């Protein structure tokens, strides 16, 4: 009877788990779970990072798209479309003032029968705007024959957290705007020129293509790469009609 009971207990115990087995299985489970959660965490970081990249790319594309379309309308309607020029506010001067970080031009950018003065410019630092370096766009309807003094409209930030353009240290390596003539040769605009002098106006008139080189950073640190920001660059060229 005792032997039978002992055998029965033995069988029962042999079917259960020993403490060691439990501990080992728990350890395995914890390890697997840890690995899984580590992967999940990495994926979450990657996912967040991808979302930031998508947002960044989209923001860059929207800026480039709008800029290209604006530039396509630069200089429309031009002076040769009129038999007389009584109303110079209906004449778009095309490129008015240009630099590696700024383009001031005129054109019917809204397709509404009015000529607008559009100013695209890089802002390196704005104490009131922590999102700068940024690029802003000012649009004002042309009201004066003097293209260089059309007044200032409301400036809206087009893109935030622009990586400083230029070829100096700590800069992107390219100017924000570069200019080319009809043969594809670069047009040197130095630190900036405008149409106030005949020589500079002649230089500006040779420009047929503008290349936009935009580098941007995310506004938050990249969770996938600690202590780093995601940087994206986009380049596009716009053929002018002037």
């Amino acid at each position, binding site marked *: 009877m005792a032997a039978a009971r002992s055998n029965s207990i033995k069988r029962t115990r042999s079917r259960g788990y020993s403490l060691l087995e439990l501990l080992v299985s728990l350890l395995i*489970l914890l390890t*697997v779970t840890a690995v899984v959660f580590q992967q999940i965490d990495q994926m979450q970081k990657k*996912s967040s990072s991808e979302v930031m990249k*998508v947002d960044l790319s989209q923001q860059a594309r929207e800026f480039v*798209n709008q800029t290209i379309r604006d530039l*396509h309308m630069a200089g429309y309607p031009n002076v040769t*479309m009129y*038999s007389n020029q009584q109303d110079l506010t*209906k004449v778009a001067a095309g490129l008015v003032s240009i630099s590696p970080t700024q383009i001031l031009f005129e054109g019917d950018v809204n397709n509404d*029968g009015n000529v607008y003065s559009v100013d695209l410019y890089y802002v390196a630092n704005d104490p009131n705007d922590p999102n700068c370096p940024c690029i802003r766009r000012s649009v004002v309807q042309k009201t004066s024959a003097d293209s260089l003094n059309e007044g200032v409209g409301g400036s809206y930030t087009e893109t935030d957290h622009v990586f400083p353009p230029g070829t100096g240290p700590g800069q992107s390596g390219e100017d924000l705007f570069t200019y080319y003539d009809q043969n594809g040769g670069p047009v040197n605009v130095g630190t900036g020129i405008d149409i106030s002098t005949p020589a500079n106006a002649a230089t500006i008139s040779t420009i047929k293509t503008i290349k936009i080189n935009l580098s941007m950073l995310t506004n938050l640190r990249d969770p996938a790469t600690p202590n780093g920001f995601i940087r994206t660059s986009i380049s596009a060229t716009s053929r002018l009609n002037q």
Partner: protein
Amino acid sequence: MARALAKTKSKKERGMALLLTLFALLLLSGIGLFMVLSSNTETRIDANYGSSLRAYYAARSGLEEVRDRIRTVSSPTNPGGLADKLPTNIAGNPNGVLYIVNPANGETIDPTDITSPYFDDDLCHAYNSGTPKGIKCTGVPTTSGWQLQSISSQVTPGTSPLGYKWIRINMKTNRTAAPYFVDQASAAAAMLAAGQSGAPLDTPVCWDGQAEQLLPSNSNPTCETNGMQTVYMLTALAVTSQGSGVNGTRKMLQAEVVAPSIRPAGVLTTASMTATTASVPPVAIDGRVHNLDGSLFLNPDGTPAIKNGCSAISALATNTGSSQMVQMLNTIRQNIVSTANSSCKSDGSGMNGNICTAALWWVRGTDSTTRFVTSVTTTTSSGGGGHDGGSSGGPGPSSGSDGGDSHGTLSGSTTTNTPCDSTTANCYTHLNLSDPSLFATSAVSGLHVPTVTVAANQPAPFIGNSGNQADSTIYQPPASQTVPNEIAAVINLVALSRTKSNYFNPAAATLSTSANTFGTANAPAVVEVSGSSLVLQGSTANLTGYGVLVIPGSLEITSGAQLHWNGIVLVQSSTGQLTVDSGALGYINGGLLLAPGAVFSVPSSGSSQPFQITYSCDAVDLAFKPLPFKVVSTAETSF
């Protein structure tokens, strides 16, 4: 019992692991799915961006294809040429619209089909359809024959990655320019707002070499006959496909294009003339359309024709004010009439020792009185009851003088000669200088005037389309800048050519006594003579060429010297002079432009072979051949 408990425990433990595994898998799947979705969104953004770019450049490629093809006329060796197939009227009227279609393989493109995804929903803004700008069109013109037969693209179907769908070609009008009316006048805006049609809203737009002008409201119906080029509006539609069907980007671009060449306002554009000719001047300024070889372009029935939109122009054009030229032309008429009346009898025989040529006899006429007089003799009796002579035509051939020149005086009366009244039909001012009979080679007597023999399509001293000034041989563009702009276009061409191999800068001295040739019909030259003036001196001087000849100062072609130029001759100096001496040989076939202020010196009589200055669009265009059609503007429309 214990066994059952153990079994239960064991099952629960296995289930826990399964649950955990499933949970982990679920999480991983969710994250994976999110990443895939994000990736898809990114891909779609990329695709849309790329689609937009493709559509834009596809539309531009279409504009460029048409811009290239309209440079040339179609021929067996150049079937793609469009210059002879362009609209001849404004949109909404017969032959007002031409479509170039570019279907993909198996695709049908009909821009006029309202149900087509490629329907032209911008056309109605080019005519008075009632649909305001900004609203898409829902119909096409109801006028019969409003569009020309569509023409296929030159791009091989299915091979072009930048396939546009169609290009519309129509003439630009003030309506299509809205709200940027070419004349910036409120009249067109008011008409547009009121839904009206007609001038100035539906007036075609022309190009004078530097700027757009509205077609002047006169009897000359085209830009070409007003010294300008027609401006064409090209509208391109490109639609990209994504997946199956038409659901990609739609882009519509518009460009205004114009031929790089000019259309002179007259064969000879000048501000003033001098003339000392005593008879019919040995010069033929012919505004009818000529071919490149100098022959007259004719209809099959032999009448002068319009060549690819190029119509006859007037012989003379002036920038501002034609009174000096009118006066000089009348001086020429007066001299011819005086010479005829003093040289010819009514039977065509000479008198006063002068030779009566067939042309002078034609001027003199066969009646006893001359056809034309230069003055009127008035006899006033001092004693009352005098005789009012009023003779017009003079004493007849037997007197050997012009009417009014040799009347005797009655006793007690006075005779005075006064210039004839230009309103009377027999005044010399009515001598038609565009009549080829002035170059008649022989004549026989006829009723009132002799019957003369002239060569087929014989020119006249001043022949061509009627102008718009007091003298019908003169045209003055309504816009004062038209002539300076034409000249500026030529100067621009020269400036662009200075670095090219077809540019020549010979010294005037080297050309003056030697034979020189510049350019060919296939390779025209741009010749800018250096030095102040060029005198082609004597029979050894022979300047021949194709293209543009620019004289900085004055040009003189002396007797026996030859100038054979096909293209444009420009005397650039405002103080310059173009002198064609009697006996000068050759021609200018194309157009002759004198800068405002420069003077044309009409050769005097004495040469049997007139120096010819003939109008030829082909020759003028030849000079501008290296240049593409000019794009006046390009814009992306909202449609």
